[in-house]
C-alpha cells in the first residue's frame, strides 16, 4: 500500500460558464497519508465540494495531477473509475442522496449490486452495517420515514458497505444538531481507528477538532494546513 492514499499536485479546476471559464480551484497541492483523518474547512464557495468531488472521482480536474492509491486517476477509463468509486472510496454526500423508493437495506446494499455480489450476501452485509450505525430496527423503512440524523447514518453505512479504504464526507453534519453531530463524528473516529482514511468537509471548528489534521480553503487555494504548521513548529523547535 502506498503511504500516500491521496497525492495532488498543481490541481486546477474551472467551470465553463456563459461568461467564460470560471476558476474554482487554483494550484492546489495536497498529500494525505493512509490512515489519516483530515478536516477541510473554508467559507462557502471556496471550492471544498468541488475538491471533494474530484477526490471522489466524480468530477475531473481541468489541470494537474491526482494520484489515488498509487494510480494516476487521469489514466483510468470510465469503467475503472466506476470500480474505484465502488470499491476504494466511500462517499458521504452533503445531502444524503439516498434512493427514496428503496428500503434502507436496499439503499445500503446498492454498492454491492455493482460489485456483483448475490442477494443474500448483499443483504447480510448491509444488515451488519445498519446495525453498526444503530439502525438495525429500521431495515425495511424508507428514507423518508426516518430522521435526518438517521438518514446520514444510512448514508455512512452505504459508504462503508464495500469496505473502502477511503471515506470522503462532504459536510456530513451540515444539517444535524450538535448532539447528533457528535454521535456521527464518534462513528468516524471509530472508523479511523480501524485504519480507514477519512477526509471530511465541515464549517464548524469543533467538528474539525475531531480530525487529526485541518486544511483550510479560501477562494480555491489551500491557505492553511495544520500538518505543515506542525512541521514548521517541529522544525522551529528542533
Amino acid at each position, binding site marked *: 500500500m502506498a503511504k500516500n492514499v491521496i497525492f495532488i499536485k498543481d490541481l486546477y479546476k474551472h467551470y465553463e460558464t456563459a461568461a467564460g471559464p470560471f476558476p474554482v480551484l487554483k494550484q492546489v497541492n495536497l498529500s494525505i497519508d493512509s490512515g489519516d483523518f483530515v478536516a477541510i474547512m473554508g467559507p462557502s464557495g471556496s471550492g471544498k465540494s468541488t475538491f471533494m*468531488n474530484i477526490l*471522489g472521482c*466524480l*468530477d475531473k480536474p481541468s489541470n494537474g495531477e491526482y494520484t489515488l492509491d498509487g494510480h494516476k486517476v487521469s489514466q483510468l477509463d*470510465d*469503467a475503472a473509475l*466506476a*470500480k474505484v*468509486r*465502488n*470499491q476504494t472510496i466511500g*462517499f458521504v*454526500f452533503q445531502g444524503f*442522496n*439516498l*434512493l427514496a*423508493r*428503496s428500503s434502507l437495506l436496499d439503499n445500503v446494499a*446498492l*454498492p454491492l*449490486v*455493482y*460489485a*456483483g455480489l448475490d*442477494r443474500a450476501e*448483499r443483504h447480510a452485509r448491509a444488515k451488519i452495517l445498519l446495525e453498526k450505525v444503530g439502525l438495525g430496527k429500521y431495515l425495511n423503512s424508507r428514507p423518508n420515514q426516518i430522521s435526518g440524523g438517521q438518514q446520514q447514518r444510512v448514508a455512512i453505512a*452505504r459508504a462503508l458497505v*464495500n469496505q473502502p479504504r477511503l471515506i470522503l464526507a462532504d459536510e456530513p453534519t451540515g444539517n444535524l444538531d450538535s448532539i447528533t453531530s457528535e454521535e456521527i463524528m464518534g462513528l468516524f473516529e471509530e472508523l479511523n481507528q480501524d485504519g480507514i482514511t477519512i477526509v471530511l468537509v465541515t464549517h464548524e471548528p469543533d467538528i474539525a477538532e475531531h480530525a487529526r489534521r485541518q486544511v483550510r480553503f479560501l477562494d480555491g487555494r489551500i491557505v492553511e494546513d495544520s500538518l505543515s504548521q506542525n512541521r514548521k513548529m517541529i522544525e522551529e523547535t528542533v
Partner: protein
Amino acid sequence: MFTAMLGEAWHAMGANRLRTFLTMLGMVIGVGAVVLMMAVGQGAQYSVSQSINAMGSNLFIVLSGSQTAGGARTGGGNASTLNVKDADAITELDGVKGVAPLTMGNAQIVYGANNWSTSIIGTTPAYLEVRSWNLTDGYAFSDSDIRSATRVALIGKTVIQNIFGDVDPIGKTIRIKQNPFVVMGVLESKGQSLDGRDQDDTIIVPLTTAQRKLFGGQTPGSVRQVIVQADSDKMMPIVEDGLNSLLRQRHNMREGAESDFTVRNLTALANSAAETTRTMSMLLGAIASVSLLVGGIGIMNIMLVSVTERTREIGIRMAIGARERDILLQFLLEAIVISIVGCLIGLFIGVGGAVLVNVLTDAAVVISGQSVVLAFSVAATVGVFFGFYPARKAARLNPIEALRYQ
C-alpha cells in the same frame, strides 16, 4: 447481477403503477390488435381454403343463358338452353375428366309431421365425383337409377337435423312435392360455400327423376348447369376453349352472335377469393402493426420522462460504482419488461377477443403459434429499440451533473 437488475426494473415499474400501466396499455392494445386481426384474417383464409377444398378441383360450370353486353347476367342458369345431350358431348372433349349435368330448384319436403324447404339437385352419379363429395352412410345412386328414374335421395346434414332429428334416415321415405322418395345415402358435411350458402342444406336425386317428377315444367331433357372437371390445372384453358366451341357449334350459333350459355372457371374464381382474403388479412395485420409501433413510441416517451425524472437517482448509482453499461442495462430491462408484460396481457386479450368473435359471429378464427411468436418478438424488439435511446441517454450522463440535477 442480472437478476438484481431485473428486480430493480420490476421495482421501478411498481413505483409508479399508473404510469407503468398507461405505458403498457399501448403495448397491450398493439399486441392484442395484431393477435386478434391475424386470428380473424387467418380464420377467413382457413374457411376460404376449406370451401375451395370442398368445392373440388379444376372445375368449370356451364350455365344456360347468356350474359348481356352490360355485364349483368340475365337469367343465367334459367333459360333452358342446355340439355343432357350437350353434357354427353362434353364428355368426349379433350382433357375432360368428369361431367355432371344439373337441374335444381327449391321444394318442400315432408317426413312424418316435419317439413322443411330445401334445395333439390337433380344430377348424375358423376356429380359426387367431380365435387369429391363422399357419403357418410348408405349408398349413392347409380346410372341405372338415372335410366329408370327411381325415386331415391341423398340427403344433407342440415336437412337431416331439421326433419329427422335423431332418427336414422337411411331407408326412410320422405315426400318431395308429394312424391315419395327413399333416402339411400347421407352426404358428408361440406360447410359453407364461398358465397356463404349452407351446402349441407340440400337433397340430391337422380337427374331424370327431378326432370320428370319435380321440375316438370322445363323442356324435356333440359338442364340448368353442367359441371365439368378438367384432367389437370394445365388442361383448364384447353377445356375452356373446347367447351365454348363445342357448345356454340351444337347450338348453331352464328359467328359474332352472343352465346346462349356461360362458361365460368370456378377454380379461378376460388383462387381470386383466396387472394382477396389473403390481402385482407395482410392489411388487417399491417393496420394492427401500426398500433404496435405507436405503443413502442409510447414506451420511448415515458422512458425519456423517466430518465429525466430519475437523473438524481442515476447520479447516485454512478457515484457508488455503477458503470455506464449497468445503467444502460437497467433502463433497457425496464423497457423490455414493460414490453413483454404488456405483450403477455395483449396476447390474452387478443386470444380472448378472437374466441369472443368466434362465439358471437360463428366466423372461423385461427390462432397460430406463428402470430404469437411474431407478436412476442415484435414486443421484445420494440422494447429494445425504443428503450435503447432513453437508456443510452441515462448511461451517458455525467455523474456529478446528474447528482446536481434538481
